[in-house]
């Protein structure tokens, strides 16, 4: 067990190292010293109170999206359509927040969150049902539905929910009216964007921990993910598990969108999530699907997100460089063979 942990940690470090090396090539290519660039990245992410607060602000959505992705992968299915659920969750939360009046704050916030989760469930219902009961590939299905969801949000907002006074000519943002004060999440530290969504995210991580480590249902999910055939023999309803796993994944992704709207933007702005779904999948993989791992990975991701901006400001290394970094990590993170190459092979000497 301990050895396995060390191995998994070492291969994670190796993926990180390769990521840093590959992006260093791109940084050198534009004539910047990579050490200077990475120093700016680190400084921008974790140096000083303000930077840490903003890093935490980015940690919130990544933590929630990471959990959403992990819930599906735990049960051996993939939800590639996280972005779609994030957008739909955000839009529904923004609409509930803006148009339903006269509720006490706490109920209003809860209503927004619940509605966004329900919308996430509805959107993943079709791929989940088709995957579980008809064995239709969920990867392509959720991915396609994600594109559709984003276009649908754009269509709905431009045609039905955008008031003329919300249109700023200069930026041409597609956006809804602002949400009411009663639906806003409180800021933890006053002038900054860090909202009490952090507690919601941590609560979600806690629920995740309890579900997978303390309940029988959670164990059934894990077992289905490890080996569906074995789970089937053990009398577990594999189809139902896959079905519920995908639905919960959609619900949590919707929640992530809602937290972004209620805690940061206070309205739905089209294009607010920059690659959040894809990066969330990376977070769940880096965190090795464990709640503590995902929390640390999301803090890392939040740091990258915040630090990359500082790096772009100071050294003119573009944000795409960090996206390359993330992609390289995703490519390397499941590649067990990379780690095996590093190991000295004692077997060889025994005449293998």
């Amino acid at each position, binding site marked *: 067990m301990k050895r396995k942990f060390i191995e998994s940690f070492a291969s994670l470090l190796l993926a990180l190292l390769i990521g840093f090396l590959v992006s260093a090539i791109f940084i050198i*290519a534009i004539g910047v010293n990579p050490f200077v660039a990475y120093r700016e990245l680190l400084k921008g992410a974790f140096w000083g109170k303000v930077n840490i607060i903003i890093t935490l602000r980015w940690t919130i959505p990544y933590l929630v999206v990471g959990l959403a992705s992990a819930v599906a992968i735990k049960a051996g299915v993939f939800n590639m359509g996280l972005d779609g659920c994030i957008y739909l969750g955000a839009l529904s939360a923004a609409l509930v927040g803006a148009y339903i009046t006269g509720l006490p704050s706490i109920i209003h916030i809860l209503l927004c969150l619940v509605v966004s989760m329900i919308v996430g469930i509805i959107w993943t219902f079709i791929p989940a049902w088709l995957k579980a009961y008809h064995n239709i590939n969920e990867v392509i*299905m959720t991915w396609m539905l994600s594109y559709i969801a984003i*276009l649908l949000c754009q269509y709905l907002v431009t045609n039905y929910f955008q008031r003329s006074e919300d249109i700023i000519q200069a930026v041409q943002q597609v956006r809804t009216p602002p949400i009411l004060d009663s639906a806003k999440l409180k800021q933890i530290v006053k002038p900054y964007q860090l909202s009490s969504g952090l507690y919601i995210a941590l609560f979600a991580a806690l629920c995740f921990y309890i579900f997978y480590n303390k309940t029988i249902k959670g164990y059934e999910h894990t077992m289905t993910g490890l080996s569906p055939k074995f789970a089937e023999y053990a009398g577990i309803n594999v189809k139902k598990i896959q079905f519920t796993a995908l639905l919960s994944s959609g619900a949590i992704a919707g929640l992530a969108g809602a937290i972004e709207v209620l805690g940061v933007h206070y309205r739905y702005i089209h294009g607010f999530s920059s690659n959040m779904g894809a990066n969330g999948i990376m977070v769940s993989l880096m965190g090795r699907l464990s709640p503590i791992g995902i929390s640390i990975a999301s803090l890392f991701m939040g740091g990258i997100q915040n630090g990359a901006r500082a790096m772009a400001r100071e050294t003119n290394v573009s944000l795409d460089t960090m*996206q*390359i970094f993330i992609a390289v990590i995703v*490519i390397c993170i499941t590649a067990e*063979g990379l780690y095996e190459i590093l190991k000295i092979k004692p077997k060889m000497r025994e005449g293998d």
Partner: protein
Amino acid sequence: MLQMIFNEGTFSMGFDLATPILLCALGGAVCNNAGNFNIALEGFMLIASFFGVVGAFFLKSTLVGILFAIASGFLIAVIYGLFRSRFKAHEIILGFGFNMFSIAFTGWMLVPILGGRGSFYNPATPSLSKISIPLIRSIPFIRILSNHNIIVYLSWLLIPLLYILIYRMPFGFKIRALGQEPEILRVNGLNPNKYFYFSEAIAGILCGLAGAFLSIGNLSMFTENMTAGRGFIAVAAIVFANGYIPTVGLISIVFGIASAIAIQLQGLGMPTELIDMTPYVLTIIMLVLTLLKKKPGQLTN
């Protein structure tokens, strides 16, 4: 109104729209026969389309553009193969990572190499000329087959060629044996990894052609993420046809014509967002239609 949608122009446009999907799907079908469910086709195609326009712009030759595209597609596919077979990365996550990488990589390269942010268009870049076939071009309706560029005809030619290669030649038997049971190859003293790389290389070359078609086939230009989900449509076609090459080809062409019809609907005042959805909606319909087929123990991933 029907006249406006179903005319010769629609079908002719449909063939053009089908070409990148067809090429990608054929490449992916070879991978599928070799037992690899490859969702990185989109990424291969995007990188190839970038280098296609780079080659055509700097050396002012469409042939160089195509060669650049094929070479880059080949290279990235072999790297994919390396990670999949040598480093044993997870199929879906690896493909996902490659797609992410290609978007970020082309977005990054766009700035220093072509000097544009988000998109690149320079009228000095050559693009492939349309081939007008004598005789055929003057027959009504049949003339939709004329006036396409070389890659379109090549893609049609590739359907029978790949069919022969995969189902009628020893090389193809080995590829398919790899997909069924890699041990068969090993028992016969062959290296399964070698055939895996071959299948990836074919996919890379075909996706390279598809990328070249996108970037220099019509208007020579590159925009960020210009493949816009075509690779996934190809994957859906492969899933639908269960990797059988003739069906994959047919489905892709039908798909292209369906997209052309959707584009004609835009002229009738449908909102752009809804028109933009059609490829994704058609992909989903195609996947759902696989339900209708009989499936006696077929290979599904």
